[in-house]
């Protein structure tokens, strides 16, 4: 087996880029920073491919399964014997897959941004942040230690915050970045406590050790964590659920999804990278990383399943009503991640039962390509019309042919039309769901149809429908740097499905056989096609039908349009409960009660001082009288106390 130590360079190169650009970019590397960032990432990307090749093909399976390799591990912070944060690199199928996904999508975004962000004032800063993000994300997927995940988890959070707030002078961007950070931070609290629970009972923070201990039913750790319980749930369930809360926050699962649509305030390429392809699937990745442990606890898996499926449905419904194209895409992302989640939830560990796991990872893989393609396409469109609103678009297929074709491919992929990438992965998910839980299957099927509908609503509204009023001079589809990524990603969206994914990425690393039978395929595919046709009827040309349908749904439509008022609930909780009912009383109490008490001590002293001033009357006879009083007092003291 060859050494994998070069993998260390994959995250370190972007880190170096971040440091260089962050320190010197603004002053010295203003124009060349884009190029530096891209080149460094290209190297990372190539190294990733090399790693993938080596792992899957050169080294291959040992004993029939792909082995988990710890290429590098260094104790970073020792808490107590056995419990430490380690920095290291794990290589296993999902890590390698994520390496490839992250570096290639990030590379595409880097290239795209060369054109898209050209002339920006903080161009170098932008690339620095992109590099920081890429580094953090790579570090996350390679983690050996659950605390290492948490650290990089926070780092991707902050890079996301920085990038969403890139247009810092726009109040809406600032608000969105704040929201994203705070909501995910809240979720991370759950993650942290989950880690504390698992670490306490497992006696280790090392992922492999934890998995090994918690999957051995006889181990003392397993026994103690399953017997200890709090509020009727075993500590294992608690731990996993709390970890999942962290994942749900980052992956925008209901009810922690509110930040994702707002996060679209960031530059569009950023949305493509962070809020479509990579960071938002970190939650899925986290569950997959700990999947052996999750599979030991049915309750935790159920929570994953139902959260996932509900989020998928909810997001799809909302997506049908939104008019901001990036928001539509954001809800679509949320919906697709919901798919991945419940797919994990219905899966079991090992062999055929692990189909859901494989499907989830497969969907993650394909989704990364077509969703980033959709975002980059949307970016091109926005670059042209300078608006996010559907009503400002239409008939753009003539102005931007490449974008049009690429976007169409992506739409077909996400709609699950064969032979595009999404078809394969979605098909596996549905099959897995069908085997395990019919209710989930039903909802998933309906969601799939909705997906096709809203994606093509989007497609038709942008590229067909009425002609947009694109005035005067425009730069068409922009430079080649903006077109090239679209083309490459389009090719991936077509071809990614044909990779023999079940062979490579499975729950136990062993590879499974999948069966595609026409019968089970027919239902979702035909539903999708029907939905596409309905979308075509409603949106291909400008007409009154959408409005009529909206009126027909009435209150439900309005509720969906308002995103089911989840934001308002949050606002209510923060603005009406936490601030006035907790924050202000505390601030008040501090000023008037705690501090007031200290002041009162001072004032009291002054009061007493004023009260006894009469003693010093200035009349010498009274002084003598006090003198005499003192003698009597002392006598009494001795008479009554001493004797």
């Amino acid at each position: 087996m060859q050494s994998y130590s070069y993998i260390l360079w994959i995250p370190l190169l972007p880190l170096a880029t971040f440091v260089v650009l962050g320190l010197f970019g603004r002053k010295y590397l203003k124009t060349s920073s884009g190029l530096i960032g891209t080149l460094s990432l290209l190297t990372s990307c190539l190294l990733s491919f090399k790693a993938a090749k080596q792992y899957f093909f050169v080294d291959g399976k040992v004993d029939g399964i792909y082995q988990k390799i710890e290429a590098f591990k260094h104790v970073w912070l020792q808490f107590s014997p056995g419990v430490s944060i380690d920095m290291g690199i794990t290589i296993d199928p999902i890590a390698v897959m994520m390496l490839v996904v992250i570096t290639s999508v990030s590379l595409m975004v880097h290239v795209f941004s060369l054109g898209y962000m050209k002339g920006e004032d903080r161009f170098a800063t932008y690339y620095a942040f992109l590099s920081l993000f890429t580094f953090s994300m790579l570090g996350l997927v390679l983690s050996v230690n659950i605390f290492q995940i948490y650290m990089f988890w926070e780092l991707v959070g902050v890079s996301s915050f920085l990038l969403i707030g890139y247009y810092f002078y726009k109040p809406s961007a600032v608000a969105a970045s704040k929201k994203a950070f705070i909501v995910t931070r809240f979720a991370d609290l759950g993650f942290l406590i989950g880690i504390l629970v698992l670490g306490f009972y497992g006696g280790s923070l090392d992922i492999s050790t934890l998995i090994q201990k918690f999957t051995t039913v006889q181990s003392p750790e397993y026994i103690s964590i399953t017997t200890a319980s709090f509020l009727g749930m075993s500590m294992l369930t608690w731990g996993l659920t709390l970890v999942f809360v962290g994942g749900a926050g980052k992956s925008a699962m209901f009810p922690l999804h509110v930040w994702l649509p707002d996060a679209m305030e960031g530059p569009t390429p950023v949305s493509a990278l962070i809020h479509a392809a990579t960071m938002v699937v970190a939650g899925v990745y986290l569950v997959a990383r700990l999947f052996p442990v999750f599979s030991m606890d049915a309750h935790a898996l159920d929570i994953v399943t139902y959260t996932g499926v509900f989020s998928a449905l909810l997001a799809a419904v909302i997506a049908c009503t939104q008019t901001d194209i990036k928001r539509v895409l954001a809800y679509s992302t949320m919906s697709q991640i919901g798919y991945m989640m419940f797919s994990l939830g219905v899966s079991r560990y090992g062999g055929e039962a692990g189909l859901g796991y494989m499907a989830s990872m497969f969907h993650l893989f394909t989704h990364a390509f077509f969703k980033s393609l959709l975002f980059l396409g949307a970016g091109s469109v926005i670059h042209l019309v300078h608006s996010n609103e559907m009503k400002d678009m239409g008939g753009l297929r003539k102005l931007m042919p490449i974008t049009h074709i690429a976007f169409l491919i992506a739409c077909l992929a996400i709609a699950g039309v064969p032979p595009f990438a999404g078809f394969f992965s979605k098909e596996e998910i549905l099959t897995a769901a069908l085997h395990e839980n019919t209710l989930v299957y039903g909802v998933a099927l309906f969601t799939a149809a909705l997906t096709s509908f809203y994606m093509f609503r989007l497609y038709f509204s942008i590229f067909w429908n009425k002609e947009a009023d694109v005035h005067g001079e425009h730069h068409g589809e922009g430079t080649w740097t903006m077109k090239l990524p679209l083309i490459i990603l389009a090719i991936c969206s077509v071809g990614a499905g044909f990779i023999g994914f079940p062979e490579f990425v499975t729950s136990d690393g062993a590879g499974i056989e999948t069966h595609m039978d026409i019968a089970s395929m027919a239902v979702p595919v035909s539903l999708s096609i029907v939905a596409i046709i309905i979308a075509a009827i409603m949106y291909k040309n400008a007409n009154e039908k959408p409005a009529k349908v909206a009126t027909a749904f009435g209150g439900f439509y309005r509720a969906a349009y308002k995103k089911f008022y989840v934001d308002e609930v949050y606002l209510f909780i923060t603005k009406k409960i936490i601030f006035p009912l907790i924050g202000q009383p505390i601030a008040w109490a501090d000023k008037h009660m705690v501090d007031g008490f200290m002041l009162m001590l001072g004032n009291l002293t002054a009061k007493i001082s004023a009260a006894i001033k009469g003693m010093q009357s200035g009349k010498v006879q009274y002084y003598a009288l006090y003198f005499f009083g003192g003698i009597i007092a002392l006598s009494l003291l001795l008479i009554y106390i001493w004797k």
Partner: protein
Amino acid sequence: MNEVPLEHILIVSTALFFIGMYGLFTRRNMITMLMSVELMLNSVNINFVAFNKYLYPEHLDGIFFSLFIITIAAAEAAVAIAIIINLYRSHRSIDVDDAAEMKF
């Protein structure tokens, strides 16, 4: 001839002491106050002499002490009267309540 018992003398001296004290507390005229103090000192003198005579006649400690008290009382009175005279110059009064500017 029956000797006067010590207790009687002590009662007289104590009475004198408290009479002096009462005078000091109640008289407004500074000279009178000074006189009251002299009463107190004299009661002490009586004490000393009586104790010496009745209880410890072998030494003359008490008697000498009272001699010194008398002397010093005279000196004290001299200084006090000088001060009171000076006070009268500025205050035009020897009422003790008029000299109570400094207080609190």
